């Protein structure tokens, strides 16, 4: 890999590991310090590797330099030494040189604990996602701003406040205790789900970035599965769901960033490997007797991922949505449920159910009604499609609806 790409790539893969290991030693209140040491390390890497060439083992080089900078900092900063060094020294058991454990075990353990610290319910949700992207995934501020469709200033402010909150919470870097584990895991999964959705549904045209977001969410989810204490059935359910969605990533987007709807997708672009993984995690999630919304969503995704058309597919999907909505309502689930109902119980019943939803401000509501009416009342279909077009925000959405309207014209 050419030098210019190597350092950003290494930042993405290694910065979160170094920050996690250092934060384990310093404590969560000083995560900003850990970040500074990492920035400094990569700055030095940029300078040295340009003039002296690449080291044989760039990763080991980074860890060694990070350790040196940490040692230098502890020597220089008297205030820090007084307030923090006692804790550090206690952990280090009176060694002269600071000891940092770069084993894979410690790195993974530190990252896991970092995940729970960042995904803490007392921190505002947006801030949790931002912190996760910055500290757990090594994303740049500009990338995060791009993903959230906002400015660098907004992101910087959000992250600053989040770190202040982390400092004030004074959390230990520990996995939650067994009685707390499920609840805290739910919060972590919630953040991973949001992260994944940012990549999957966001409006930014930066396709590689969106894919990265999805892959990072999956990577972090997998960390939970690899650890015995966090490898719960519902954790597997979420990963299954993400794998099913990700399997269609290539087919879902045209080269110019337009959304290609399910029925129009080229099925040969579906990733069979990811579908196989998704099935594996779905089976793992079926252990135990708790059904969560992730189980239901993964099961629905399973039915959509089958390339063959099962005759009772829509009945299965309808029943899954019935249960999903009873656990947690969302307008999207309500609309999707209604579509499934139309397929399973007939268009007339589908229209009846749809009219009851009355989500008149949502363009997707009118899209659904347009679709349902298109086989029974063309005029009504057209008027709903036109409403949908007015309400739709993005060009991509308006274009898709225009296509539906065009198809209506040819029927008339």
């Amino acid at each position: 890999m050419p030098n210019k790409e190597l350092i950003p790539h290494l930042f993405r893969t290694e910065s979160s590991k170094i920050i996690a290991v250092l934060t384990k030693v310093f404590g969560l209140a000083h995560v900003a310090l850990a970040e500074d040491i990492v920035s400094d390390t990569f700055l030095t890497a940029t300078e040295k590797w340009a003039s002296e060439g690449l080291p044989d083992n760039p990763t080991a080089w980074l860890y060694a330099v990070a350790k040196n900078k940490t040692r230098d900092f502890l020597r220089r900063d008297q205030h820090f030494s007084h307030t923090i060094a006692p804790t550090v020294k206690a952990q280090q058991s009176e060694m002269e040189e600071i000891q940092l454990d770069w084993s894979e075990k410690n790195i993974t353990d530190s990252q896991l604990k970092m995940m729970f610290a960042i995904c803490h319910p007392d921190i505002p949700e947006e801030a949790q996602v931002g912190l996760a992207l910055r500290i757990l995934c090594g994303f740049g501020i500009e990338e995060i701003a791009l993903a959230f469709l906002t400015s660098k200033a907004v992101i910087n402010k959000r992250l600053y406040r989040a770190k202040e909150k982390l400092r004030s919470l004074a959390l230990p870097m520990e996995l939650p205790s067994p009685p707390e584990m499920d609840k805290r895991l739910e919060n972590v999964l919630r953040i991973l789900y949001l992260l994944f959705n940012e990549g999957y549904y966001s409006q930014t045209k930066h396709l590689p970035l969106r894919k990265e977001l999805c892959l990072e969410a999956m990577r972090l989810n997998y960390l939970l599965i690899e650890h015995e204490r966090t490898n719960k059935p519902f954790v597997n359910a979420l990963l299954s769901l993400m794998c099913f969605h990700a399997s269609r990533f290539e087919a879902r987007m045209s080269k110019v960033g337009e959304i290609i709807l399910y029925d129009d997708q080229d099925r040969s672009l579906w990733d069979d490997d990811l579908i196989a993984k998704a099935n594996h995690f779905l089976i793992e999630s079926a252990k135990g007797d708790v059904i969560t919304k992730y189980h239901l969503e993964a099961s629905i995704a399973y039915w959509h991922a089958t390339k063959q058309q099962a005759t009772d597919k829509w009945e299965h999907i309808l029943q899954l949505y019935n249960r999903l909505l009873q656990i947690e309502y969302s307008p999207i689930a309500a609309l999707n449920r209604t579509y499934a109902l139309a397929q399973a119980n007939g268009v007339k019943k589908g229209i009846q159910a749809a009219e009851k939803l009355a989500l008149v401000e949502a363009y997707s509501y009118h899209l659904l009604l347009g679709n349902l009416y298109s086989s029974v009342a063309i005029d009504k279909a057209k008027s709903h499609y036109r409403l949908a077009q007015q309400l739709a925000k993005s060009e991509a959405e308006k274009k898709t609806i225009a296509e539906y309207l065009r198809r209506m014209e040819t029927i008339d």
Partner: protein
Amino acid sequence: MMIFRHIPNPDIERTPEQIQASIKQWQDWMGGIAAQGKFVSANQLGFEGKTLKPNKVVTDGPYAEIKEIIGGYLIVKANNLEEALGLAEGCPVLAFGGHVEVRDIMVLDH
């Protein structure tokens, strides 16, 4: 709260298909309420039970002196009784001679 009441018929035996169809009816109906964002919770009651009366008397069965039993309940969000009644329409219990009692739930602590 909707309370589903019906008079059970001990002579009727339902086939697995009929039971499946019944489950679908209930799930579709509750799903419809949930799709409107108005579902809170529901439970089907079991077929066994005991009744505790004054003076620590316990009798078998959920049955009171009338033949009607409560099969289950559903809690919904509605602005008034009329709205809740509207949601009760289409309830499967109505198809086999039962009825839906619609009551408001009192808020006790403020």
